[in-house]
């Protein structure tokens, strides 16, 4: 799959102060850099997601650096405390410098 697609899932509504789960999935090859091209024998350069950041209304609430040995199409879930209604912006950065973004709305009651 050449085109990278991301999916995010959060609860429809959460009460203020409640801790909710954010689930995310992104389609990415996560080329390890260990493989060789079958015909030419040349090394295929590493191309993995190396950084993930989640911002909640402009404030970074979760971030992580990724290294080797993460599977292709990585799934990530984490917990965030509900403060205000607004948007959650998820961003994955890979070795080529490309940033894949996905935004989702959250309603806090």
């Amino acid at each position, binding site marked *: *799959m050449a085109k990278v*697609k991301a999916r995010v899932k959060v609860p429809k509504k959460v009460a203020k102060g409640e801790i909710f789960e954010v689930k995310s*999935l992104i*389609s990415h090859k996560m080329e390890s850099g260990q493989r060789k091209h079958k015909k030419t024998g040349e090394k295929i350069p590493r191309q993995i997601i190396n950084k993930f950041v989640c911002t909640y209304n402009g404030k970074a609430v979760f971030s992580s650096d990724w290294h080797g040995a993460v599977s*292709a*199409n990585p799934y990530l879930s984490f917990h965030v405390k509900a403060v205000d209604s607004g948007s959650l912006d998820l961003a994955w950065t890979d070795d080529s410098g490309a940033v894949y973004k996905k935004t989702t709305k959250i309603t806090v009651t």
Partner: protein
Amino acid sequence: MRNLYIAALGVAAMTVTSIGTVFAAEDYGKYQVEDRRSGYTYAAKETQAIQDDNFENPAMLWVDDGSVLWEQAEGEVGKACASCHEDAADSMKMTGAEYPKHNPKLGKMQNLEQRINQCRTENMKAKPFKYESAEMLGMTTFVRHQSNGQAMSVKVDGEVAPFFKKGEAFYNQRRGQLDMSCKNCHGDNSGNMARANMLSEGQSNGFPTYRLKWQKPGSIHRRFRGCNKNIRAKPFGYGSEEYVNLELYVAWRGRGLPVETPAVRN
């Protein structure tokens, strides 16, 4: 003395219960029909959890792709799948459970991949998808996902019978340098270990399956080829008649099991 007597009774009672648990067959629920068990029951708990959660299941990305392709008009006729088949949830509800089917025009069996390509070349006048391409996997995963939960029910009598016999013969035929048949592992030794791997019954109800080893979904023919290579036999081609007949026989072996597409396996 009396205390001793009670203690002895207690031991006896404990022994009885422990024997009870040893012999009680595990309940696999919908994943078991008579003596047939889905590959799901052989998978690790963590792998099962990935399959159970439709969001976590990475193969759902391919299902999404397939649903886009379903609506997308292609070819000279300018039709999409949806132009004729409309809502896949209705029109494809039983498809996944009933393929491969006999095609009287071709005079042989046809699996889902071949049926999709026939539709593309004849009705849409579009280019056929390549086997194992992202498009083909997206489409087959999407179509078969619509049949999720339906009981596998391929037709094996009438004009299908000779092909079924061929598939059965292939299944039981020893081949390759290791001189092994499909049956040697999946019929006689399911539940036993082959090195570090638990051998399953080799059921096809979850295909196209997302294999963690492949890091993407793959068709049953890819799995057949992998199995054939493992026993050092020369694999047949994707969509070859031998494999389509085998696919039919394997689907019949899993009759009654629910379609699980897209399943997740190790």
